[in-house]
């Protein structure tokens, strides 16, 4: 686990997806993983009309000290996009720090999208990977595994612990296998500097 910038530093993450993609679950799992590592964290959804397929967002804050603010995340250090088509909506990248990063569920090339977004970008074909591993198009755990591997914000083992608090049986086993598969295939720590810069 890395130190979050300066003392009392806080990292803010926004997750964009569509209703039914496990957006809120992703936020809760990420915050649970951070809390399991002794950090402070907060996760909450921005509920729109609750219907499958509609654009939804969820927010995560991770810090070394208690988190007091309750406002939505307007200037995230990282944006995690579960549905590629949402990248074209103005709200999706709004306020993203210039030194921040975009983690996106896409079959496209990371470099090409980095140019499009003007930010460090990492693509992961998370829908395909989840269909293979889980039999369902649930990109959230694969994206979190890649995100934590790139940033080394938390150990991947912490993500597994958080999943184990929420799921059981085959669903858990398949998700844990998917997390290992993605973490092994993702370059380690290449976004560490982004975390440091964004939380300073």
């Amino acid at each position, binding site marked *: 686990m890395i130190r979050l910038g300066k003392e009392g530093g806080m990292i803010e993450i926004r997750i964009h997806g569509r209703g039914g993609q496990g957006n809120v679950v992703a936020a*809760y799992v990420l915050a649970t993983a951070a*809390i399991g590592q002794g950090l*402070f*964290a907060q*996760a909450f959804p921005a509920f729109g009309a609750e219907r499958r397929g509609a654009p939804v967002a969820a927010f995560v804050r991770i810090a070394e000290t208690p988190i007091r603010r309750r406002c939505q995340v307007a200037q995230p250090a990282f944006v995690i996009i579960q549905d590629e088509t949402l990248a074209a909506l103005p709200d999706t990248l709004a306020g993203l720090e210039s030194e921040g990063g975009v983690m996106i569920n896409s079959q496209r090339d990371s470099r090409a999208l980095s140019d499009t977004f003007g930010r460090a970008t990492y693509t992961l074909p998370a829908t395909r990977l989840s269909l293979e591993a889980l039999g369902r198009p649930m990109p959230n755990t694969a994206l979190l595994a890649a995100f934590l591997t790139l940033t080394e914000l938390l150990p991947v083992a912490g993500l597994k612990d958080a999943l184990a608090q929420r799921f059981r049986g085959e669903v858990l086993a398949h998700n844990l296998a998917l997390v290992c598969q993605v973490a092994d295939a993702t370059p380690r720590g290449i976004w560490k500097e982004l975390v440091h810069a964004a939380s300073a």
Partner: protein
Amino acid sequence: MRQALEGSQAIARAVALCRPQVVAAYPITPQTHIVEHIAKLVADDKFHCELVSVESEFSAASVVLGAACAGSRAYTASASQGILLMSEVLFNISGLRVPLVLTCANRAVSAPLSIWNDQQDSMAVRDAGWIQIYCADNQEAVDATIQAFRIAERCELPVMVCVDGFTLTHTLEPLELPDQELVDGFLPPYHFSRALDPLAPLSIGTLVAPEYFTEARHLHHAALLAAEKEIVAAARDWAAACGREQAPLVRVDGPADAKIGILTLGSVFGTLLDARDQFPGLPVKLMHLRCFRPFPVEALRAACAGLHDLIVLERAIAPGADGIVGAEMRSALADTDSPPRIHNFAAGLGGRDVPLAIYPRLLEAIKKPHPRMSAIDLRPELLPADSPVRQEAAP
């Protein structure tokens, strides 16, 4: 030990730790998760109570009223239209001086239809004769829920614990849940002295003619006022038991000699604390009104002593009048020596996000007089172009 819990889940677990014998509720967003979690605890055999599924909030309130009259510790939860549908029964519960606990997952009231957070629902029943406690965060919600049962039972009054919908109920964060033993020590089994008994039948809720009605109402009023010391004692004893201190009536944070104060209720308090750090400038005292009923006049006068300007920031509005808490603050401070100028604003109605930037906006806004309440986060550009309100609100 700190655990990662969603606010609703933590409240449900806190309720179970208090061992109510009867829980009745009807689901309504954003309260639903609370009763869902309670139902799950019951289904998993981790919590034993009579869980009554009803067909409306009117029935939910009626069931807990009946259960409490029969001597049970009882709990319910609701929000928004659910609170309004309950309102007839809410007055009966308090007028009969029946102790029980209700969580209000604060949400806007229709129309226009909104499922999101503000505090219009609990404010609409502010005169129902219940104790009302507002929570600034989910740890406070856990602790207030446990304290509420004791306050209710000692005062023979119902307690409404108000928790901002979504902003708190749907937020996952690290929370401390006490051990069962600790809660059992704080909250011994309840014996209701007026519990209905088939061997000694009596009627309650009968017609009261003008000869006695005033006295019944006055006793109810006096009981609410007297509840203040039980609210203080519950917070003090709970702090001694679990180690978490909490200002029972009004939390004050900031320099004692500040000339500007901001008073608010609920989760926006934490945002203001961070905003004050983010925008350093004039010293500002931030105040959280935890106990709204009874209205803690003396504590508020002490908290506001020396202020030149008091901003009252509310998540509700009294259309055609002013703010609700703002008006009560004017009344509470009117006959103090040199009362502050009171600036009353609404913010965050119907779930509008309250950002850190609200803080400098408030401090800027008090430089000009605001004779009537207004929404500080109003966006005039969204009003009809020909609306006189738009012309007035334009900066």
